[in-house]
């Protein structure tokens, strides 16, 4: 037999391929008979050393030893594997039996939407600020330019705790706190829970979550507000989203606007959810009213600012196609598990 180290290494590869096809004891015996017995391929190759030239012999011997060790090792491993699998699954693994899983954790859909939105603004240089849920009239209304006995207060049905303390009706009081705690430049988002004394139904609940935004500096303009929110809408709802700003009224911004986006369910064609308008109302915004700046001790001649606020829960409902807002707070785990 004509032997060289190339053919030895070729045989090592063959051994490796062959062992992979072995899946039963019989097949393993075939393998043993082919390579490892006295009349097997490997032993025969060792015989061949004799006919090799003396200076090739050390190298060949080394290669053959490697071959023998590899074959033996693969054989031993396969043998052990077959014995083990026998105790577990008789002859073969049933790949269709489910693995031993662990439960998959979920964030609540509202938290998920809130975090996703917050992170988009963080990527645009906004920091996060938080505030209390129990507020007073000053922070929730007065500093935000809702004078006492003003009809604008009817826009937000309030839960009162006493003469002045109340459950905040929006996250805007956090704006007041942020502005009173620091000086411009300010660029913050403020997520949180708010309360409205509205009858509970499929469409509304007595509490929900908002994401508030505030930017105050020397050259903040309405054009920048539009641009910032346009970027947000594209990042959150997809780059093909269309948007429109229309005038509205909030006591703490002037001018005030509402932002509508093209309905992401029907792509603007009109459906039940968008009331066949093709548009969805997603947020209110505007330029910070000079009276708010005065209330927090800023000079409206020196700074301008914009603010925006959006309801999270309803947007989450639309996004995920849930038709009853109360389901969000029932916390049935079969619903929660869909938000892994």
């Amino acid at each position, binding site marked *: 037999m004509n032997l060289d180290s190339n053919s030895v290494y070729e045989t090592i590869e063959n051994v490796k391929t062959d062992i992979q096809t072995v899946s039963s004891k019989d097949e393993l015996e075939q393998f043993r008979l082919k390579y490892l017995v006295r009349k097997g391929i490997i032993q025969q190759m060792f015989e061949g050393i004799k006919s090799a030239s003396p200076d090739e012999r050390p190298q060949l011997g080394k290669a053959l030893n490697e071959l023998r060790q590899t074959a033996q090792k693969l054989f031993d491993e396969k043998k052990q594997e077959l014995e083990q699998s026998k105790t577990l699954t008789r002859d073969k693994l049933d790949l269709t039996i*489910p693995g031993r899983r662990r439960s998959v954790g979920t964030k609540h859909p509202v*938290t998920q939407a809130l975090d996703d939105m917050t992170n988009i603004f963080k990527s645009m*240089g906004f920091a996060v600020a938080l505030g209390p849920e129990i507020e007073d009239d000053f922070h929730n209304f007065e500093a935000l330019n809702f004078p006492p006995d003003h009809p604008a207060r009817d826009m937000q049905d309030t839960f009162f705790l006493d003469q002045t303390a109340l459950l905040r009706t929006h996250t805007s009081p956090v704006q007041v706190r942020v502005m009173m705690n620091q000086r411009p430049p300010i660029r913050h988002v403020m997520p949180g829970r708010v309360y409205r004394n509205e009858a509970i139904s499929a469409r509304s609940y007595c509490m929900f979550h908002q994401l508030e935004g505030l930017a105050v500096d020397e050259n903040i303009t309405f054009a920048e507000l539009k641009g910032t929110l346009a*970027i947000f809408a594209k990042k959150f709802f997809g780059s093909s989203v269309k948007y429109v700003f229309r005038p509205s009224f909030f006591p703490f911004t002037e*001018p005030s606007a509402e932002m509508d986006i093209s309905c992401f369910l029907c792509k603007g064609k009109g459906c039940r959810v968008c009331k066949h308008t093709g548009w969805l109302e997603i947020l209110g915004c505007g330029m910070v009213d000079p009276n708010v700046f005065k209330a927090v001790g800023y000079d409206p001649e020196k700074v301008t600012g914009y603010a925006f606020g959006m309801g999270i829960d309803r947007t989450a409902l639309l996004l995920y196609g849930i038709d009853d807002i109360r389901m969000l707070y029932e916390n049935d785990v079969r619903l929660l598990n869909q938000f892994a």
Partner: protein
Amino acid sequence: MNISFNWLQDYITIHESPEEIAGRLTMAGLEVEAIRSTRETYANFVVGKVRDVRQHPNADRLTVCDVYDGKQTHTVVCGAPNVATGQKIVFARVGSVVPANGMHVKEVEIRGQKSAGMICSEYELDLGEDHEGILVLSDDAEPGKQFSEYYWNGDVVFEIGITPNRPDCLSHIGVARDIAALYKRPLRIPKIKLSESRKPVKSALTIDIQDKEHCPRYVGRLIEGVTIGESPDWMQRRLKMIGVRPINAVVDVTNYVMMEYGQPLHAFDFDLIHNGKIVVRLANDGEKFVTLDEKERTLTKNNLLICDAKQPVALAGVMGGMNSEINNETTSVLIESAYFAPSSVRHTSRQLGLVTESSYRFERGVDPSRTAEAADRAVQLIQQLTGGTMYRGRVDAYPKKIKPINIPFRNKQVERVLGIAIPASSVKSILKRLGVEVKESKKKGEWRCVVPTYRPDIEREIDLVEEIVRVYGFDNVPAQETAAIRFTADDVRPGIHERIREWFVGAGYNEVVCNSMVPGTWNIFTGKPAVTVNNPQNQDMTDLRTSLIPGMLQVVGHNMNRGNHSLRLYEIGHIFSHDPFPGSKNYIQNYHEGETIAIMLTGARNPEDWSLKDATYDFYDLKGEVESLESKFNLDKIEYNIYNTNSNTLIDEAVGIEFKGISRGYFGKVSKEVLKSFDIEVDVYAAEIDLELFSEFSHVEKKYSEVPKYPPVHRDLAFILDEKVTYHELDQIVRESGQPLVDNVSFFDIYRDDKIGNDKKSIAISLEMLSKEKTLTQPEIEETLSRIVKAVEKNLGGVLRS
């Protein structure tokens, strides 16, 4: 606010479709929330002619009619007593939907007689209350004509959501005025021509305003010889179209003028006004007054009253009184048109819980310059509708003149706020179209703007900027997608909430979100003084939660009822109390608020793993979760103590979590009584931990300590100990006596049986020994082990189990 599209066209010429106008209004801040078209509401309702009426063969009270609808004749069963041959009626074809009740008109069989369509009553058409008889139309009605055209002239109603700053648009003229400004078209205000008698009004009526702050202006007009009857069809239709119920001609006129001008009016029966005298004054505390809705109201000194020489006759701007209302015998009418201070009307309206069309407009601000004009318009219409003779002139008490305000305006502010320069000529044109008079000022770059009195919302320069961009169009301001940001030092790394949630998600928990408003009974469990809501929505939401656990138990109960038995839940949320608690902050006096994290485990430990299916959660699972969470956030020196459950009865045998001497939370098995109140019959394990522990004390900075170079050696030992010896004690002794080689001690088993003996237990531990300098030798290991065994024997009376 409902606005009729046809009515609008009294004041402005419109070529555009309703949809187009609605879109433009919406883009100018008058959001048209819905468009209701009579053509849609009354689709398939046509004028019909009754050609024949026969007795129904099988029913005494029914008739069978042949109705011609302009194309063909239908056989219809009718139950109305007043149906007769030759009548013109409203015929609902098969396929139509009845406006009053949403019923679909189908071909049916009534007592063996086919009926294809319906002859309609006023009620069914949503035109009035009468549902006994059918509505009979005038003879000239042409069969086949669409009812929407015949009756409504194809009108369309806009439902406009008027924001609180736009009282000027709470009327048809107001909306027309905005359309005129947007489309640069002239506005046609009705020209009022009065035919007055020679009798001067001042001879019969005096007005005495005693409180000019609350009532700056009060106009009175008189008309006598009036006969009270129904208002004509054209007026009734207009009122019905926008949802106002017709009452009688005089009252209808006051409503009509209010919807036309936005000025609320009140009509008194002048014969019931003592001495022809009107006095405007504040009420006395405790004064009683019966309003038109027949309710007796107790007033305070903040409520403004309209009185005659003897008694109150109206709650100013809110509602008239029973004692002077227009009735069928009324012949003389006093028309009141006034300007009341918005805050005064709002105060009274809120105090009495009485919101009317009138109070709604006054509290937002009516136009003090049109007070007299509205009164003139009203008497003109009353005379036109009911006859009667007008007194000459009006009494116009105007002690506190309201002048248009004058605002300095710098055009550069437009660019500063909007980020886009609008040419001065365009700005001026917009302002003029809005009725703002623009005058040059001595100061350079500044104008003086005189704002009409119907726009009380425009008080400042910024309000003018808003008006300019509203008309200019928000769409025409570019969206600037670049910004020059001044950087701040604020931390924008993931916040503690996000990092904690990340851990829970990785650990396989479902996050729940529960209501913060809870029934009072839930707060009894925690013993913390609870914050209560003054105006709760119902009995289940009277308090603010003092713990997250009860809310989560409700979630557990809810899930159990739906067959979800294995639960692994967490919540992060605010809790509240009147007393301070660890981690609470005191933002608002008397209220303390903090955030906690709650964990809840029940049912199968891991339902997803079939090899562990039967294992259910126990105390040590919960403790392990708490420990893992704490180690994830590098909280050292946490101590677990027996938690005092005297006040907090949520948990049985609770373990307290103590950090630097302050209790930061607790955990354990939820007590049976508490579970019972939530109808839960299985064990539930719960923990609640103050979030501040993580936000304030978690080590954020990471520091590497050297990983041992030489492999550790593991040895297991089991000791038989008295029951009273704790694992903690054993652990400490082993660590001390095992120095310096013992690097770690871990628990691996606890075992009890008769052979060991009563009050005894066997605890098995695993030791990890290593040296930083070298590989350990067998003698070194043996020596350490025997030292440990002796120490345990000596200090704890423990015996090594062989």
